């Protein structure tokens, strides 16, 4: 078997289990809310329009945005609850996914519920009243049974939507089959992307078929069909959830975070391997958005991750000045500890700076070496940026410092940003200096003589909760100052272009570290 397929299979029990957990819970919650709402809306015309309009409105919000919006909301609620009741809750992962996906599942259930209930033959309703049924008795013995096939059809649609949308829960920290897709996209591992799509589609198809069996059983009054569908769903759910049970009883459990790019996956794997070697149980939250990762660490939802000094400087401290590499690091260490209780354990030893990059051939043809040179030509050039660069404060300061005005600006997922530069669709990109593709694609990084961009030392951060955890600190301390830029670039390239998995790259990096330690000892 292809090693990438084997790697995908190995992850399936966890990803599938989590995916089933979050989509099944969301569906149950969505059903529990929308069914009573559908009953109320079917009985009151005044309630019907606003309810359906609200549900339709939710549906128009892109799934990813809806998931993302629940994070700050829950974070604020968690902070409120901490002030009021002394303890907060996890604003990342399961909860925002559950709420967003439940909301998402409501429209088809509501719409079909109202249609089914208002569609019951008025003569039958009249007869139910005529024999002396109360409203409740009429609902349960006549209206719901008669509307059941239509309602079930809505549940079916909701299930398919929810299972599909659950792949988008990955960026808010909920493991799902989307992990294949997001990390595959990032590392150009198309086997993973395809595997994730197929697994999610297969799951949706199976759920749809089983619910369809229940639906037709209700419509044709075949009890065995309803029973077969229900039992199939129950068994399927239980089997999928089994791998999630009984993980990490008693042992210390650590959660390592990673943002959504290759270097982050490799470093998170490196940290996780070291902790596991110490006998700890480690779980991962991958593909976190840039500011989500820091907030999650502050809140203790992840215990450690790697961030970059310039990113924290600009986005967390909101600073735009540039006092130099050492001063930035020192001030960050002091302020983050004092303000948020977050410990900056130290720099890993390399910088992953934002830098504008061009193809060497074009840069030489235009005689562009620095951002000052670039400013003169920018009007004829197209900038390709990653998804967040254009909204970051660093871009504002670079743009203002050099008076950069490009002909056009396009945003890409990083993998495609490099591809776009390579193919000539864009002329300049917001590159990362530790990216192996800079050397591989023969790109040049443009100098920043006005120092508009802050330094971006890769730094190890530890959550306030685990700041004094000896096992964690012992596992991480040896990484400080241990990784050179070349080593990181090579590791990144092995994943981005040579199709190694981040885990493999992390193993190779670890071996190199051990050799260095060995060499130092000799």
């Amino acid at each position, binding site marked *: 078997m292809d090693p990438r397929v084997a790697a995908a299979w190995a992850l399936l029990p966890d990803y599938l289990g989590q995916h089933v957990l979050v989509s099944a819970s969301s569906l149950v919650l969505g059903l529990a809310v929308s069914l009573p709402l559908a009953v109320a809306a079917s009985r009151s015309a005044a309630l019907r329009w606003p309810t359906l309009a609200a549900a339709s409105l939710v549906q128009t919000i892109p799934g990813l945005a809806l998931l993302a919006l629940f994070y700050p909301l829950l974070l604020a609620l968690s902070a409120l609850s901490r002030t009021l009741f002394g303890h907060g809750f996890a604003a990342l992962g399961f909860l925002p996914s559950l709420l967003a996906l439940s909301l998402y599942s409501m429209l088809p259930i509501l719409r079909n519920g109202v249609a089914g209930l208002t569609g019951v033959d008025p003569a039958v309703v009249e007869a139910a009243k005529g024999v002396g*049924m109360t409203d409740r008795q009429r609902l349960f013995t006549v209206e719901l049974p008669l509307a059941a096939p239509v309602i079930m059809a809505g549940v079916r649609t909701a299930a398919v939507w929810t299972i599909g949308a659950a792949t988008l829960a990955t960026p808010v920290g909920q493991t799902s089959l989307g992990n294949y897709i997001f990390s595959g996209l990032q590392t150009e591992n198309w086997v993973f992307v395809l595997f994730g799509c197929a697994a999610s589609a297969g799951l949706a198809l199976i759920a749809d078929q089983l619910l369809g069996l229940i639906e037709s059983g209700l419509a044709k009054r075949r009890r065995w069909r309803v029973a077969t569908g229900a039992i199939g769903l129950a068994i399927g759910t239980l089997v999928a959830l089994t791998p999630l049970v009984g993980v990490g009883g008693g042992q210390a459990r650590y959660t390592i975070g990673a943002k959504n790019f290759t270097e982050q996956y490799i470093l998170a794997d490196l940290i996780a391997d070291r902790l596991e070697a110490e006998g700890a149980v480690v779980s991962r939250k991958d593909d976190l958005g840039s500011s989500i990762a820091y907030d999650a660490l502050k809140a203790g939802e992840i215990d450690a991750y790697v961030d970059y000094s310039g990113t924290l400087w600009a986005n967390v401290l909101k600073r735009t000045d540039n006092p130099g590499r050492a001063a930035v690091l020192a001030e960050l260490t002091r302020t983050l500890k004092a303000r948020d209780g977050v410990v900056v354990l130290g720099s890993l030893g390399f910088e992953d700076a934002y830098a504008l990059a061009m193809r060497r051939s074009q840069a030489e043809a235009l005689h562009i070496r620095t951002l000052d040179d670039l400013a003169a030509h920018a009007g004829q050039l197209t900038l390709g940026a990653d998804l967040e660069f254009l909204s970051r404060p660093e871009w504002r300061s670079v743009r203002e410092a050099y008076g950069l005005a490009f002909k056009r600006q396009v945003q890409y997922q990083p993998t495609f940003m490099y591809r776009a530069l390579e193919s000539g669709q864009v002329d300049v990109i917001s590159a990362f200096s530790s990216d192996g593709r800079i050397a591989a694609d023969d790109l040049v990084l443009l100098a920043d003589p006005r120092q508009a961009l802050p330094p971006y030392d890769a730094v190890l951060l530890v959550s306030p909760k685990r700041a004094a955890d000896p096992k964690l600190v012992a596992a991480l301390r040896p990484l400080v100052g241990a990784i050179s830029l070349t080593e990181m670039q090579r590791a990144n390239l092995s994943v981005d272009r040579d199709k190694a998995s981040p885990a493999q790259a992390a193993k190779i990096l670890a071996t190199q570290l051990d050799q260095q330690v060995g060499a130092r000892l000799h």
Partner: protein
Amino acid sequence: MAGPIIELKDVVKRYGALAAVNGVSLSIEAGSFVALLGGSGSGKTTALKTINGLVAADAGEVRVEGKLAASQPGWALRRRIGYVFQEIGLFPHLTVAENIGVGPKLAGWRPAEIAARVQDLLELVALPQDVAGRLPGALSGGQRQRVGVARALAAKPAIMLMDEPFGALDPVTRDALSRDYRALHEHLGLTTLMVTHDVWEALLLADRIVVLSEGRVLADASPAVLLAGHPDARVRALMDTPRRQAERVRALEAGGA
């Protein structure tokens, strides 16, 4: 008998500006068979529904078995009154036996009692026992309305309200069913109030005919008295129709002999 079993006093029901029932008073003795006769829009159905609470009167008083209808929950009132209407409204997801058993079940009868009652009722409305397990969809129109009548009678009500009960049936079935019902009415000692727009039906079935027009009572008398003549021209015109038809039939028979 101490007073009427059903009593309406100056009952008014408005829908917006329209008074569907505009001051109707009626007093019905136990055991009588009364037809509420009128064209469409006469208010006959609305008046009927004020009796079992499916329509709440805006003004006036409705008393059933001496008690104010408005003083009790509608469902409680309706459990004591049989109700049959043109569209029948059998529960399509329940078998014939389950349909008939709904009322007794609501009243808390034991399953064995319900089963026995269903058997009796099928016999009473002249349906074969083997329809008990079928769904309503598998029955003919006439059979369905027989089940409708059986369902209305199941919890042993003293009063039956019928809204054009046989209006949707073909003439032969309709005649058979209405004669069977009239016999049941006698046999069970029921009080029946039947809404109809069909003068013939009213004449042939009822002991007393109440003619309604634009929400008011135009006439209230026995069929014989109404046929003999009435001061209101509209009532006379109404009664003329069956008379002319009967004369025509007689003439045809005489000519053919």
